[in-house]
């Protein structure tokens, strides 16, 4: 997983820098960069190389998507041949047709919008609150000493256990759901930010101090940039949580949203519509994660593995 994530990044970084001219005799000092698996090189555009690359890409595509294609095929075929009951597991094609219908002139966009607003609000608020708090805890020892026990208690309290409390205090409206997402998303961001600040290489701090940097500049020019990759890892995890936990809240008490759609269609036996909801959630989660992964990669190109 780790090298699959980093390989294309290395490839593009390398090709961007390739035209750079090396002073003669110095090029042998260039650190050996691990050969990227996928390298969109500009220079090797001869037909044979192109063909070879296409073949390699194709074989990679087959390897990577094989399991998914198998799942989709099974979903289509097994209900048709009677392994699954078609009523409970309709073939994929039927679900997709229903999904398309719901998307064009059904309630799907409305539910999607409701869910997105809740998750993004909770997620955004978590970023706005947890990053500064994490920086404070990571940087100021007294703050860490004072807050760590309390945070440990809450961290080990499942958000699901607190949902009834949020509902009691904040009502069954949007506020309690957004708070619920905010709570669940805060932990990965907070903990990663704290560890990002705490694990800054001491030598870098020493080096910056030797150049006369005061505490504020030191924080701004060394601690913060050094912690950025860790913070983004937390943000990406939180992004996944924001959708996962929201579904639960919407299943417990809501009149709109994808979680409501899934539970409501199940209980009123509109099974293909239920699957349409599940497919939407799955696609949404994947897209969101992909987007955050892109952003994360952009901010941590310097991080060596």
């Amino acid at each position: 997983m780790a090298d699959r994530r980093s390989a294309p990044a290395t490839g593009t970084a390398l090709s961007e820098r390739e035209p750079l001219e090396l002073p003669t005799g110095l090029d042998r000092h260039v650190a050996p960069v691990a050969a990227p698996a996928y390298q969109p090189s500009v220079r090797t555009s001869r037909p044979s190389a192109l063909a070879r690359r296409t073949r390699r890409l194709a074989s990679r595509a087959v390897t990577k998507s094989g399991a998914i294609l198998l799942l989709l095929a099974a979903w289509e075929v097994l209900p048709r041949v009677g392994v699954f009951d078609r009523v409970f597991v309709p073939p994929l094609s039927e679900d997709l047709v229903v999904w398309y219908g719901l998307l064009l002139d059904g309630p799907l966009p409305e539910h999607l919008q409701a869910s997105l607003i809740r998750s993004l609000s909770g997620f955004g608020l978590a970023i706005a609150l947890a990053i500064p708090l994490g920086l404070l805890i990571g940087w100021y020892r007294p703050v860490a000493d004072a807050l760590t026990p309390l945070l440990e208690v809450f961290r080990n309290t499942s958000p699901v256990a607190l949902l009834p409390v949020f509902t009691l205090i904040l009502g069954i409206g949007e506020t309690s759901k957004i708070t619920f997402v905010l709570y669940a998303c805060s932990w990965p961001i907070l903990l990663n930010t704290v560890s990002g600040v705490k694990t800054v290489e001491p030598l870098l701090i020493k080096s910056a101090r030797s150049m006369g940097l005061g505490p504020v500049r030191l924080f701004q020019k060394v601690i913060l940039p050094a912690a950025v990759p860790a913070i983004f890892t937390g943000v990406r995890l939180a992004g996944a949580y924001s959708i996962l936990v929201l579904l639960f809240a919407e299943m417990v008490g809501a009149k709109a949203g994808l979680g409501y759609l899934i539970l409501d269609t199940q209980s009123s036996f509109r099974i293909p519509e239920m699957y349409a909801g599940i497919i939407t959630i799955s696609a949404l989660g994947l897209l969101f994660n992909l987007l955050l992964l892109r952003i994360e990669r952009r901010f941590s190109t310097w991080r060596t593995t």
Partner: protein
Amino acid sequence: MTTTAVTTKIGIRDVRKVFQVRDAGEPFVALDGVDLDVREGEFLALVGPSGCGKSTLLDLVAGLTAPTAGEIVIDGTPVTGPGLDRGIVFQQYALFPWRTAQANVEFGLEAKAVPRRERRERARHHLDLVGLTGFEERYPHELSGGMRQRVAIARSLAFDPDVLLMDEPFAALDAQTRESLQEELLRIWDKTGKTIIFITHGIDEAVYLGQRVAVMTSRPGTIKEVVEVAFDSRAGDLRADPVFGEYRHHVWTLLRDEVAAAQVLERKAATSRG
């Protein structure tokens, strides 16, 4: 006294440094009674057995820690904290991995509030000085160890300190890269006229680079002897010169007893812990 005071750049006066060790009853005396004058524009090599407090002494001169007793003066003014009049080069480079070579060199200039355009020019100039033209936009992880250390040297030179403090800067490099960097450092020193304190555990390196070699005792560290090193000519293979061998042997003899003493200390510490 008055004549030497004029040319003394760094004065280390009866410096003592004691660390309070956690859980241990007795304090840890790293340095005791260190007296050393470094002349203006001098290249001073500092050798000593491992754990003798060489790096502690460098931290004190850098102003990163304060001496328990005694004082350190630079140009007659006591050191009270770190400053851009001194640049440090560390063994592990200490480059900021999120900054390119160029931006790393600019770091000290930003701290000095040099305007952006001048920053860029000075960084380019100093990267050129260490032979890294064309590598400005590389990140540290894209550079070899030798090149990273060149960037670190360029960074320390760029903000134009009077004093360069180097803590075993070439220890992590392979022999060939080390030799070429040694030569380059001498060239740069010649060109810039900086005062350099160069810590090393290599006797050859100390004799090759230093105008004087200060030998430290084992812990608690103090200066055992300062050896003046002078060659009639540095042309050719200096290390093969019989005079080089004599200096080398002299420093080696001074160090041998201290290294043995340091090993006894280490063993004692290990057994008392175990």
